[in-house]
C-alpha cells in the first residue's frame, strides 16, 4: 500500500484495478473522445497559426495611408452653393502629410515594435523585349525587414537594397528571363527611368504576388515615382497582434491618416476561424457529454457490484463522506487517465495526418503545434468531467444502507 495515498485513493485505485475490463473499456472510450478533441484542436490551431504567420510575416499588422481625398461642394457665399453636384475624385497617389512626425509618434507608442515608412507605386520593368507592369515598394530595409520578413523569403541572391538594387518576385524573374545580377530598366509613368541590379529573388508563397512584387530602396523609389521625401504608407507591427485593430482605430482618431489593421483587411479569415471555433466547441461539448455518461454508467454498475464491499466498509467505521469520495476519485481518475491515453492517441493521429496532408506544392498543410496548454486544459477538463459524472453514483454509494448491502 502506498504510504502517500489517502484511504479514498487506495480504495478507488483498487476498485478500478479489480474492475479490469470495465475499466479498460471506459478508459478506451474516454481516450478516443479526448483524442478527437486534441487532434481537432491542435490541427485547427496549426492551420490558424500557419495562416497568421504567413499573413504577419508578409504583411504589416497596421498600415497607415493618406486619407481619402474628398471633394467639397463649391460655395459662393454663406449657404449658397455654386455647384452642388459632387463627384468622387480620382485618387491620386499622394504622400502622407507630415509623415516623419507621424512616424516618430508611432515609434514612441509602447505597443508598437517596428515602424517603416514605405512608398508604393506602379512602374514598368523592362528587360530586352520583355516588360511587365509591377508594384514597386520603396522601403528602408532595416525597419521594413522587421515587419515583412523579406530575408526569410529570399530564394536566390541576398536581401540587399542599396540605391542601385532591386529585389523581385521569382515569377517576375521568370517572366523577364532575368536572375540575380541582371540589370533591369525601371520606368515610372512620369517617364523617369533608372537601371537597377537584381540583388535577390523572393518567393512569398503566392503566384500572383510573386509576379508583381519588387522592392527597391526608399530613396530610389521616391525619385522614380516623383515623390522626393514622400511616402505613401507607414507600416507598423505591434506587440499584441490581436490588439492591432484597436490600436489602428486609436491612431486613426488621433492623426490625419487612414489606419488599416490586418484584422480588418483579413476579416473573412476571422469569420472562418470563428465558425470553426464554434464547431469545435460544439464537438467538445458533445464528446464531453458522452464521456460523462459513459463514466456515470460504469460507476453506477460498479456501485451495485461493490455494494457488499461498501456495506462492510461502512460497518468498519467508514463514513458516508469517505464512501462518496472513493467513487468521486474513481470518476476523476478515469477522466484523467483517459485524457493521458487520449492525448497520446491524438498526438499520434496528428503526426500521422501531418505527414500525409500536404499542400499542392508539397509543403506541410499545417505546422505541428503541440502546446502544453492544450494538454493541461484537456486533462483538467476530462478530470472535472469524470468528477461530475461520478457525482450521482457516488451519492448513491454513500446513501447505501449497510444492513441491506451486507444482507444482499
Amino acid at each position, binding site marked *: *500500500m502506498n504510504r502517500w495515498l489517502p484511504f479514498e485513493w*487506495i480504495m478507488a485505485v483498487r476498485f478500478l484495478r479489480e474492475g479490469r475490463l470495465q475499466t479498460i473499456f471506459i478508459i478506451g472510450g474516454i481516450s478516443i473522445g479526448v483524442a478527437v478533441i486534441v487532434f481537432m484542436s491542435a490541427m485547427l490551431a496549426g492551420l490558424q497559426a500557419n495562416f497568421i504567420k504567413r499573413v504577419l510575416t508578409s504583411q504589416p499588422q497596421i498600415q497607415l495611408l493618406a486619407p481619402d481625398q474628398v471633394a467639397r461642394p463649391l460655395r459662393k457665399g454663406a449657404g449658397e452653393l455654386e455647384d452642388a453636384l459632387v463627384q468622387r475624385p480620382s485618387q491620386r497617389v499622394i504622400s502622407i502629410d507630415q509623415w516623419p512626425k507621424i512616424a516618430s509618434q508611432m515609434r514612441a507608442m509602447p505597443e508598437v515594435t517596428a515602424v517603416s515608412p514605405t512608398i508604393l507605386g506602379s512602374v514598368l520593368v523592362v528587360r530586352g523585349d520583355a516588360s511587365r507592369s509591377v508594384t514597386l515598394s520603396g522601403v528602408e530595409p532595416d525597419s521594413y525587414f522587421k515587419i515583412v520578413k523579406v530575408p526569410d523569403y529570399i530564394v536566390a541572391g541576398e536581401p540587399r537594397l542599396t540605391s542601385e538594387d532591386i529585389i523581385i518576385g521569382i515569377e517576375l524573374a521568370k517572366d523577364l528571363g532575368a536572375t540575380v545580377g541582371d540589370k533591369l530598366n525601371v520606368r515610372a509613368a512620369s517617364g523617369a527611368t533608372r537601371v537597377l541590379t537584381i540583388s535577390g529573388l523572393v518567393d512569398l508563397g503566392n503566384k500572383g504576388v510573386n509576379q508583381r512584387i519588387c522592392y527597391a530602396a526608399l530613396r530610389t523609389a521616391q525619385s522614380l515615382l516623383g515623390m522626393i521625401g514622400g511616402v505613401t504608407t507607414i507600416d507598423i507591427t505591434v506587440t499584441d497582434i490581436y490588439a492591432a485593430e484597436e490600436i489602428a482605430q486609436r491612431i486613426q482618431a488621433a492623426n490625419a491618416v487612414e489606419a488599416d489593421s490586418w484584422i480588418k483587411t483579413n476579416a473573412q479569415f476571422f469569420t472562418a476561424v470563428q465558425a470553426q471555433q464554434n464547431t469545435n466547441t460544439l464537438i467538445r461539448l458533445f464528446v464531453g457529454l458522452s464521456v460523462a455518461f459513459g463514466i456515470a454508467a460504469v460507476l453506477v454498475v460498479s456501485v451495485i457490484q461493490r455494494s457488499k464491499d461498501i456495506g*462492510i466498509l461502512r*460497518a468498519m*467505521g467508514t463514513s458516508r463522506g469517505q464512501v462518496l469520495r472513493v467513487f468521486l476519485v474513481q470518476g476523476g481518475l478515469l477522466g484523467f487517465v483517459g485524457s493521458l491515453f487520449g492525448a497520446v492517441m491524438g498526438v499520434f493521429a496528428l503526426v500521422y495526418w501531418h505527414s500525409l496532408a500536404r499542400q499542392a506544392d508539397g509543403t506541410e498543410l499545417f505546422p505541428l503545434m503541440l502546446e502544453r496548454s492544450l494538454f493541461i486544459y484537456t486533462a483538467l477538463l476530462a478530470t472535472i468531467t469524470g468528477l461530475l459524472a461520478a457525482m450521482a453514483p457516488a451519492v448513491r454509494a454513500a446513501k447505501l444502507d*449497510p444492513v441491506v448491502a451486507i444482507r444482499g
Partner: protein
Amino acid sequence: MANREEDASQKASEILKLERVCKAYNVGLPTETEVLHDIDLKLDHGEFLALMGPSGSGKSTLLNIVGLLDRPTSGRLLIKGRDTAALGDAEITRLRGHTIGFVFQYHLLISAFTARENVMMPMLADRGFPSAEIEARANRLLGQVGLEKFAGNLANNMSGGQQQRVAVARALAMNPDLVLADEPTGNLDTRSADAVFELMRQVNRDSGTSFLLVTHNMDLARRCDRIIEVVDGRIRA
C-alpha cells in the same frame, strides 16, 4: 436525572444495554411488521454471550441494532452508558468504528485486497493514511490468528476458515470493546469452526473484549459465559 446517574454508575461494568427495544420493518407501509418486541438486554465488559434462536427470530436484526448499523423503532440503546438515539450519522459511524468489531457469516473480506490490507482497513479508514504502525499492527493480529504466512494473500485465495480468521483479526483491529459475530462459523466445518471459536474465546480471555456471538451450534454455545435465546423477536430466559 435519575437515568443519567444510573448510566454513569453502570458505565464501568456494562458495555451494552438495551431497554424495551422494538424494531419494525416497513414502518408506515401496509407490510409493516414488528420483528423485535421489547428487548431488554445487558452485556458486561468482558462477557462472552451466545445468542441462539430459530431462523427468522430476529437475531441478525438485533445484532444490526446493537452494531449501530440500524436504529431501533423504539426503546433505548446504550453503548458504554451512552444513549445512541441522539447521535447523528457521523457520530454513530465514529462510535461504531472505535467500539465495535464485526464478523459476518458471508461476504467476509473485501476481495480486491490482501489479508493484511483487509485487517488494516478499519485503521486506515480511521486515520486516513497508511502507516508502518498500522501495517505492523495488522501483521501482529494476523500472527495472533495464526495467519502471518498468508498476510500477502488476496482474500479470495484463502479457505473459508482462513478468511474467517482474517475477519476476526480485522474485527479486532481498532481494539474494540465489543465484537459482534453473526454465525461466523456457520459456513465452516467442525474443526475450522472450533478453531475460529477458540480464537475468539482466547481474545476475550486475554484482552477482555466482550463478544456477542450468534450461533446455531449448541456445542459452541455451551462454551460461552451465557446463552440467550431469541424466539419470535422476544428474549426467552
